[in-house]
């Protein structure tokens, strides 16, 4: 039998105060990031801000500077250009959107072929979002997150206890905020896929929390001694620890494969999920269960 860990007896509950401090700092940072994102002062994708994103592939290497100069000379200023590492692909992002006369993508094509004479390139794809759409999208994103969390609280409250539902939701919020914070400070772009990743993280983190809660519920029945709830939690977490680690590894393997081989579009998505995997595992052990414990200490 191969075992990564054996008969652990870690006192997780004793570590809860330290964990709460760490989490409080993380959540504060994440909360700050969330405010900045809501105010639009983050690297938001054109899905939310409106604008145009054009992906161009050149036959030969080209420097960002040359590309930027070509666009500026052609009359498109205020562009963000991102090079896809290891290729001669570029993302050209601008706040401008289509006019009634012509689409911005074809305007950029015209500019590039006149300014960069002789350079062979292909427009791989383009994405134009009008200014009104982003507002709707933000609204829908918020409704989606709220609904998902509400559904989860209700389900967990029904299957476990109300306090568990609250604790699981706090843990989930914690995870989503922390990932949002990390993305904000790495100046990663918030696009629809990243929002999707955040919701998926919520799902994954819950899966972890539910497994721990399930064991606590089972052991509470078995151990009966009400005064030592902390012990029940510790035993339960230790019992499921090997599962947590093995599943974590197998999920990390899949995500690693997407990050390395899945291409530019999926990288950030998988990266967010990867962070979520780590923070979600942490929170089900150090946030969700200790909250239930702290609640019981206080009100019983």
């Amino acid at each position, binding site marked *: 039998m191969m075992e990564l860990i054996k008969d652990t007896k870690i006192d997780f509950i004793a570590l809860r105060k330290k964990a709460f401090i760490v989490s409080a700092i993380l959540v504060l940072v994440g909360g700050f990031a969330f405010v900045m994102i809501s105010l639009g002062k983050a690297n938001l994708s054109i899905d939310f801000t409106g604008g145009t994103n054009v992906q161009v592939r050149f036959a030969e290497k080209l420097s960002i500077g040359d590309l930027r100069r070509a666009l500026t000379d052609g009359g498109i200023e205020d562009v963000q250009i991102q090079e896809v590492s290891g290729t001669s692909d570029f993302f050209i992002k601008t706040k401008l959107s289509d006019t009634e006369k012509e*689409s911005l993508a074809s305007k950029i094509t015209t500019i590039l072929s006149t300014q960069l004479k002789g350079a062979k390139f292909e427009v791989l794809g383009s994405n134009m979002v009008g200014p009104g759409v982003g507002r709707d999208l933000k609204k829908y994103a918020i409704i989606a997150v709220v609904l998902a969390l509400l559904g989860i609280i209700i389900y967990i409250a029904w299957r476990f206890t109300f306090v568990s539902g609250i604790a699981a939701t706090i843990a989930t919020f914690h995870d989503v905020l922390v990932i949002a914070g990390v993305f904000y400070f790495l100046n990663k772009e918030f696009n*629809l896929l990243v929002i*999707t990743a955040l919701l998926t993280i*919520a799902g994954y983190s819950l899966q*972890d929390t539910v497994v721990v809660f399930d064991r606590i519920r089972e052991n509470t029945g078995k151990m009966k001694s009400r005064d030592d709830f902390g012990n029940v939690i510790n035993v339960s977490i230790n019992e499921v620890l090997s599962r947590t680690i093995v599943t974590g590894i197998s*999920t990390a393997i*899949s995500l690693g*494969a997407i990050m390395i081989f899945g291409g530019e579009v*999926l990288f950030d998505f998988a990266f967010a999920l990867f962070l979520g995997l780590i923070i979600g595992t942490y929170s089900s052990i150090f946030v969700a269960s200790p909250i239930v414990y702290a609640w019981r200490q206080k009100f019983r």
Partner: protein
Amino acid sequence: MIKSLKLRFILILVFLVVSIVYCLPNVVELGGVWKKYLPSDKIHLGLDLKGGMHLLLELDTSKLMDNIIDRRMNSLKDAMISDGVRFLGIDRKGSTIIVSIRPDQKEKLFNVVGNKFSDLKAGASKPEGDLLSIELLVPENQLASIKDNAVNQALETIRNRIDQFGVSEPVIVKQGENQILVQLPGVKDPQRALELIGKTAQLEFKLVDEEATARGESGAIPADDEVLKIRSKNRETGVETTAPIVLKRQALLTGELLTDARISMGGRDIGSEISVGLEFNSEGARIFDKVTAENVGKRLAIVLDNTVYSAPQIRERISGGKASITGGFTMDEAKDLAIVLRAGALPAPVRVVQNITIGPTLGQDSINKGVLATLLASIFVIIFMVIYYRYSGIIANVALALNLIYLLGIFSAFKATMTLPGIAGIALTIGMGVDSNVLIFERIREELRLGKTVRAAVDGGYAKAWVAIFDSHITTLITAAVLFIFGTGPIKGFAITLIFGMIINLFTAVFGSKTIFDWILAKYKPRTLSI
């Protein structure tokens, strides 16, 4: 769980065979008899993988309201004149028409409105000096249904245009209140498609006001005139130039009365101008006949979406209801113009609020990368499970393989759309999917440590792990369902993968792997378990 091992295997096998049958068209081209009886649909690829165009169009409903109120006002004016109602002014303010009349004409006016304009409602009437100013308005609910009809009409028109343009499997649906979603998979020339779909194609025939045009830009323009641009195109260089032209505001004839529009090559000479020939219905022909008869010598402007294409002089009365538009068109332009005129005008202009275009190279790139990532993820996870759980790991891997095959089968059978995030979802399903087996195996190990027999440990492990597996699947399903409801295109693809993946996983990872365990335990009765 079903007791009989045989039954359980049959169930698994039936699902497997059905899934494989549904998956087959993706791998091999079926021919002959097979094609007739077996499903032949490939997995439906989303635009991000297939390449194509995704457009979100918004109908300018305020413009539509303007048009409708304007038209009401004009016909009310005509009706008042023909019924002898003496009025001193007619104007509009927003969606309200205001008529000023002498008090003694009030009854006559209401008679006209009552008889001919059932959709107009009388509002307040205020005395202004010795005049009365009467408000007439279109009721709110009527406006709402007009808006609704307009969106549906626009949708039909766009569908017609796309059908005639020739795109396979287009998606054209209404979204929200006044938006239309158009998806054109694999479209070759997105710019041309956009122009074809987005053109309002409001065709009007108006008389040129020669005097006002001659006065030039500095001159004053009569109230019932308007200044438009006349387009002319150099046929050698293709350069377009425009010049102002003054027209009578009232349209004598509109595109609504067209029955046909076809491209025609003009004369027999090579290089003669390409034009679009128009044919009117009998009412249109009658009006055209009358208009040309009354205005011989004057110029009649052909106006498309407020641009004058040509303004030929009427040399003689034209009967038969035929006309043509010229304007230095290229073959493609003329072809597209004929399509939009045949399909009819949009009730109001549309605005493109979202335009995602994905070239075929990018799509293929994404497929290659996504498939590679998924394959490697599977291989690594399979190796990991065998290293960690030995023979039991192999059982988990069989369950995983079943999970994948069922998933692809269901995707094909339900004609669900696979997107790039969807492929990532498959890779993720692999990683998260083994979780069920990990939970079970860890439980079995615990039971074995307690000194239970292999049989009891396996049964106990499955029974105890079930609750946690079920609960965790439900929570993931809740988030996936929310993503499915609120997500757009690619995200929906991810949500679908996750939903199908989770449901199938409950079957394969629990029912499937347990069946294999039970079979091995019954057949070999092992004393120890390789786990």
